[in-house]
């Protein structure tokens, strides 16, 4: 079958059709020329490899081209608008990167003597200081390596605090609209999870929550603003009820970008919150990373925070508490090797210091403004799942696509052809055909307007009866529509060499 734009090579201009490295390499080829080592004593106890392991052999320029070509097929925040809801795909300032690469920062080793890394420890301490000030909580565990890791760390801290008072509890309450990691973390930490329903306004049903509270509830895990992009405005009442029941109030800080610099979670009665530095504080993620999920803690939880922690010495120097015996506190253990994602602390601190308190205050307002601008301009195009105004993300349902034969998934695929990363789809689960759009504060009005124009034209096309157009999307991506069902039902997890062709007689 010939297609418009098809070529002999399979490449399409600058877009190379790139085979797997296994398909283009040969075991006889190598990019590194080393002398054959002299035979030594075999210390492998009979486990010496007897046949080749089948790695592809490629020359250096072939390797460079391979990965460069693959990278061209990758969508990234540096390349385009990425409104993936609840992910806060904001711009990663180049200042952060410059500072993370400074000599003396980029080339540190975590096993260096403490006396030679005083500046790095001061930096961790300064980053911790900002996080504590912005959240109004007195302590922070810096080491967790991601948001969900922070959730687990927070729950383990809560468990340690409860067990210390001889009051181990069994249940954790999680709203239906929560990120899937919340119930997973609670379950992983040994708790039974109970769902709290939402009310008609898309917020926690406080009466239902109170009914589920009891002396065996260890914690509630709430996201605020929640995943419907709405502020939980009964949060003070929720906190009071949770504390009256002797439980702790965990907040999922994934959506902190909507309120940073304006609301201190500690003032809302929150005992424990993880902070995604890779969302709110502009460090890379979504294929960049790594993430970082420090957990801020109330005074009641602080003694149980995991090691290590950086503390001020009496003489103005810094030291690291690495073992429980080095302090009077009761750390529950260690969750990560070394001191956490130090490179991300550098970037987050660079962001916070360059923005300043006033800059962060404006950033959260602009994030909310951008989401509300989208929601307002899309009035009549997409149906909001709950009436606005929203916080930092706008949530739509599938209502306006009803009877067009076009689904949320189809619309998302068509957005790929328009050059945008699709919004989050089918999450939160409480909304039918959910579309969760989070523009962040770093996008210009021009970018938002272009995205809105694309959405409006696509929805108009759906109403024009052109469902087929959507079924075939994406047309312009390196790959057309993937068969997600077959990929899940019959996943191909391993490449195998094609069977050798047998010559016909």
């Amino acid at each position: 079958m010939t297609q418009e734009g098809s070529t002999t090579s399979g490449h399409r201009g600058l877009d190379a059709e790139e085979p797997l490295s296994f398909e283009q390499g040969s075991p006889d080829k190598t990019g590194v020329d080393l002398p054959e080592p002299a035979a030594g004593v075999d210390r492998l106890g009979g486990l010496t490899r007897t046949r080749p392991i089948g790695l592809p052999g490629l020359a250096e320029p072939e390797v460079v081209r391979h990965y460069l070509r693959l990278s061209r097929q990758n969508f990234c925040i540096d390349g385009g608008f990425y409104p993936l809801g609840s992910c806060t795909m904001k711009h990663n300032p180049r200042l952060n990167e410059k500072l993370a690469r400074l000599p003396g920062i980029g080339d540190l080793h975590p096993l260096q003597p403490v006396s030679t890394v005083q500046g790095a420890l001061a930096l961790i301490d300064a980053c911790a200081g900002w996080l504590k000030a912005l959240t109004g909580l007195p302590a922070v565990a810096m080491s967790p390596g991601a948001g969900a890791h922070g959730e687990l760390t927070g729950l383990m801290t809560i468990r340690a605090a409860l067990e210390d008072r001889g009051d181990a509890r069994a249940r954790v309450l999680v709203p239906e609209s929560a990120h899937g990691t919340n119930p997973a973390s609670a379950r992983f930490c040994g708790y039974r999870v109970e769902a709290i329903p939402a009310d008609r306004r898309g917020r926690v049903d406080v009466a239902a929550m109170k009914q589920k509270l009891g002396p065996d509830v260890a914690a509630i895990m709430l996201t605020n603003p929640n995943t419907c992009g709405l502020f939980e405005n009964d949060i003070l009442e929720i906190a009071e009820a949770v504390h009256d029941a002797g439980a702790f109030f965990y907040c999922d800080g994934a959506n902190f970008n909507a309120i940073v610099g304006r609301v201190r979670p500690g003032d809302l009665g929150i005992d424990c919150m993880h902070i995604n530095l890779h969302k709110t504080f502009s460090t890379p993620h979504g294929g960049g990373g790594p993430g970082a999920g420090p957990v801020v803690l109330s005074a009641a939880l602080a003694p149980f925070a995991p090691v290590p922690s950086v503390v001020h010495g009496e003489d103005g120097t810094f030291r690291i508490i690495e073992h429980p015996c080095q302090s009077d506190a009761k750390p529950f253990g260690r969750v990560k090797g070394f001191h956490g994602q130090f490179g991300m602390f550098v970037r987050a601190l660079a962001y916070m210091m360059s923005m300043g308190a006033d800059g962060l205050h404006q950033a959260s307002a602009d994030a909310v403004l951008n989401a509300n601008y989208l929601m307002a301009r899309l009035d009549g195009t997409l149906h909001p799942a709950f009436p606005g105004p929203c916080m930092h993300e706008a949530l739509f349902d599938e209502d306006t696509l009803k009877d067009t034969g076009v689904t949320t998934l189809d619309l998302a695929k068509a957005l790929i052809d328009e050059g945008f990363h699709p919004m989050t789809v089918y999450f939160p689960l409480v909304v039918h055909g959910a579309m969760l759009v989070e523009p962040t504060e770093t996008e210009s009005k021009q970018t938002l307007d272009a995205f809105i124009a694309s959405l409006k034209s696509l929805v108009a096309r759906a109403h024009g009866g052109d469902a087929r157009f959507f079924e075939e999307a994406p047309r312009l991506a390196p790959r057309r529509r993937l068969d997600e069902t077959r990929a899940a039902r019959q996943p191909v997890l391993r490449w195998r060499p094609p069977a050798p062709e047998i010559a016909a007689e």
Partner: protein
Amino acid sequence: MTSMRYTREHEWIRVDGEIGTVGITDYAQEQLGDVVFVELPEVGRQVVKGDEVAVVESVKAASEVYAPVSGDVTETNEKLAEEPATVNSAPTAEGWFFKMRITASAELDDLMDTATYKDYVDSLD
């Protein structure tokens, strides 16, 4: 004599004497989309009405399946491991999840009959 009963969470149970066969409704499979994985309970497990008994995963979401009434699991539909698509193609027939010996048959009275469930589903759209 057999009869069908339905839950608000879109499970069905077909009652034949003291044995009930449980699955998810046509509405549920349509909402989920293409089912790609089903996790079934262990035979012999005692369940209380409302317990999470099975998990059904689609390209869109993973959902729990709850016990419509209390009882003991007597048999599971092993074919679903190989052919999860059966849940989409025949949700109330070959796509059944598990069978149970019902120990509290009075709980059946709390469930909806076919006509009531149909009205319930219509009210959701």
